[in-house]
């Protein structure tokens, strides 16, 4: 950078990025998802009208998706610590100790709205995003899972959505070469207009080689790597935070296209660089791309950041600062390097044919300063984007208790044989082989229990240890009684892990609910979390990472409350594992539990 970028400079009032940039008004802010009170807060923070670029930053960072403004205070109720926890929520993924100096790193995330609009690419980029969360932390991804909720099988859109989503998940995971070993799939009319696509990734790393996202070291270079930035998915984060309406597809046409090939190269290049000690901090550019990655890294590190947007590798001409900051182009990462390590890093990324650019530096200002074409186009306090983002205590009412269903109220089947056939043929119970056969579940040569059992088992490469993995939830329980349903979902993952002989370690979650501004939906959310918290507490089974997806509604119809839980367990000796098949005629059958 030409001038000395790291020193505090006299407060500069940012200017418009382009001569045609619209003036920022309360209406424009509302179109960006900021309500009147929130916009007032922006004005008060800055003491002036924001530029369009700044409005973009606030709209993204204060969206439900990034700020967790409706959920933050409730998520605090979940237990997140334990002797096995190396890193709980707050980083790109959770990290647990699995002994012998090794760690398992995992997280689950939703890609619901994009998958409804463009099922193949929406689901594919969901897998890409969750993989980045895991390898960002230094882990080699070793397994993928996916939890899918579709509308009724006979609904006009279901078939198209199912085939697109399954193909997209397979298309991405198969190509990057990470086995997809499990998941769950359900069908219910309450998902007709709003499907759920939750993807989970699990990785392995040495416990002393975990990478974090807090930026440090004033003056250190901020580096962009991966694919170029295009005009993809601008407003994706705000879309993930708004209810659907019939014309969403028209209004928000921007869905990103994933490139799993580039992701595979990015994994290899990042792991190669991580084997050196050049990286200070690293974060992937997920929803809200450059904005959230740079703000969160600098915010966590308590430093400032200055980016020179002219240096951002772009795919298209004449991209504005606003577009670059809001782009959701996939397969990109942001890193802070130790000074002088740029050339070493560049050589690795160039070998893998990826873009590499030094786009800025850390400062001591506590502000995010964006420069484009020599003009300062944004200059805002970082705290206002991150820690001081809105945090709401939304009103919530408990769900009406449902009457208990007593066995004698359920008519007995006339013909047991037929009842069994009906059940195994029911969409929710039928075999999922047709799904998992479309996923490469054996690549990497360590899949010990393939899909089809209670939990999948993936061996820790080169050892006789294994990770057991499962994803579960029963939404109708959560609707009938959120508290009990939340507990049950946790317990189900626990049972599935135990059933293969694993010691459950920790869970990740993906909390899919309707509009939190409706007290009854908020009541479901709070109930499920409190139930989950109680179960996790009782089991010593902490939540180490997760994701919240709200506003899953179409035309006022909310989905079933769906807190998907992803459980990870450890099998210390793979010779002592269990599988569901009945082994021999004559074996005794036991029923355990109540």
């Amino acid at each position: 950078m030409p001038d000395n970028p790291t020193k505090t400079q006299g407060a500069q009032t940012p200017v418009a990025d382009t001569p045609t940039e619209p003036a920022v008004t309360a209406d424009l802010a509302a179109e960006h998802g900021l309500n009147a009170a929130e916009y007032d807060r922006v004005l008060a923070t800055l003491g002036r009208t924001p530029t369009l670029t700044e409005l973009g930053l606030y709209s993204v960072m204060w969206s439900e998706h990034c700020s967790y403004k409706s959920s933050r205070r409730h998520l605090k109720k979940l237990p997140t610590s334990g002797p096995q926890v190396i890193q709980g929520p707050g980083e790109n993924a959770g990290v647990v100790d699995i002994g012998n100096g090794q760690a398992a790193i995992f997280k689950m995330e939703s890609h619901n709205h994009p998958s409804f609009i463009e099922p193949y690419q929406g689901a594919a980029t969901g897998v890409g995003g969750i993989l980045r969360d895991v390898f960002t932390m230094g882990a080699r991804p070793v397994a993928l899972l996916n939890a899918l909720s579709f509308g009724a099988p006979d609904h006009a859109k279901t078939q198209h959505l199912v085939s697109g989503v399954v193909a997209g998940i397979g298309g991405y995971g198969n190509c990057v070469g990470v086995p997809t070993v499990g998941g769950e799939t359900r069908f219910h009319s309450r998902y007709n207009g709003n499907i759920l696509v939750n993807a989970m990734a699990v990785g392995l790393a040495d416990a002393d080689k975990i990478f974090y996202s807090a930026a440090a070291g004033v003056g250190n270079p901020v580096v962009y790597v991966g694919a170029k930035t295009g005009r993809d998915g601008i407003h994706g984060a705000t879309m993930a935070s708004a209810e659907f309406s019939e014309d969403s597809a028209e209004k928000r046409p921007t869905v990103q296209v994933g490139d799993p090939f580039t992701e595979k190269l990015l994994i290899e290049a990042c792991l190669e660089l991580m084997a050196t000690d050049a990286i200070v901090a690293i974060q992937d550019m997920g929803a809200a791309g450059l904005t959230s990655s740079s703000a969160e890294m600098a915010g966590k590190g308590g430093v400032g950041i200055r980016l020179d947007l002219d240096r951002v590798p772009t795919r298209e001409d004449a991209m504005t600062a606003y577009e670059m900051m809001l782009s959701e182009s996939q397969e990109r990462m942001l890193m802070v390097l130790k000074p002088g390590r740029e050339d070493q890093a560049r050589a690795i990324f160039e070998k893998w044919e990826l873009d590499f650019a030094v786009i800025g530096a850390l400062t001591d200002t506590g502000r995010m300063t964006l420069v484009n074409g020599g003009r300062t186009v944004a200059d805002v306090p970082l705290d206002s984007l991150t820690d001081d983002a809105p945090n709401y205590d939304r009103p919530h009412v408990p769900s009406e208790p449902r009457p208990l269903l007593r066995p004698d109220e359920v008519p007995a089947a006339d013909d047991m044989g037929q009842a069994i056939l009906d059940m195994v043929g029911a969409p929710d119970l039928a075999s999922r082989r047709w799904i998992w056969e479309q996923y490469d579940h054996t690549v990497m040569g360590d899949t010990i229990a393939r899909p089809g059992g209670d939990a999948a088992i993936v061996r820790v490469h080169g050892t006789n240890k294994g990770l057991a993995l499962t994803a579960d939830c029963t939404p109708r329980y959560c609707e009938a009684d959120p508290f009990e349903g939340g507990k049950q979902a946790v317990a189900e993952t626990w049972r599935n892990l135990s059933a293969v002989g694993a010691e459950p370690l920790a869970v990740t979650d993906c909390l899919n609910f309707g509009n939190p501004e409706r007290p009854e939906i908020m009541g479901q959310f709070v109930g499920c979390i409190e139930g989950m918290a109680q179960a996790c507490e009782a089991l010593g089974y902490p939540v180490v990472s997760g994701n919240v997806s709200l506003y899953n509604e179409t035309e006022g119809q909310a989905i079933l409350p769906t807190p998907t839980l992803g459980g990870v367990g450890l099998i210390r000796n793979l010779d002592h594992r269990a599988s569901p098949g009945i082994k021999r005629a004559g074996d005794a059958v036991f029923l355990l539990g109540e």
Partner: protein
Amino acid sequence: MKARVHITLKPGVLDPEGKAIGRGLAALGYDGVGEVRQGKVVELDLADTEPQAARDRVDAMCRDLLANTVIERYEIELI
């Protein structure tokens, strides 16, 4: 009657396949090749005999199944 539908990614939508082909050509020594974009063609045999009706029907097929207008655009050619 036959229809040929060209389906291409909208301008600005990432085309990883086109990019890879471009790199492949460069690696083989073909220089001076700028942007490469890849698309699909679908050829349909139609029972229709009236061009306008055929075109309308193919247009409906494109919107219903053949193209996803969120990321793709299409062009119909009757032959």
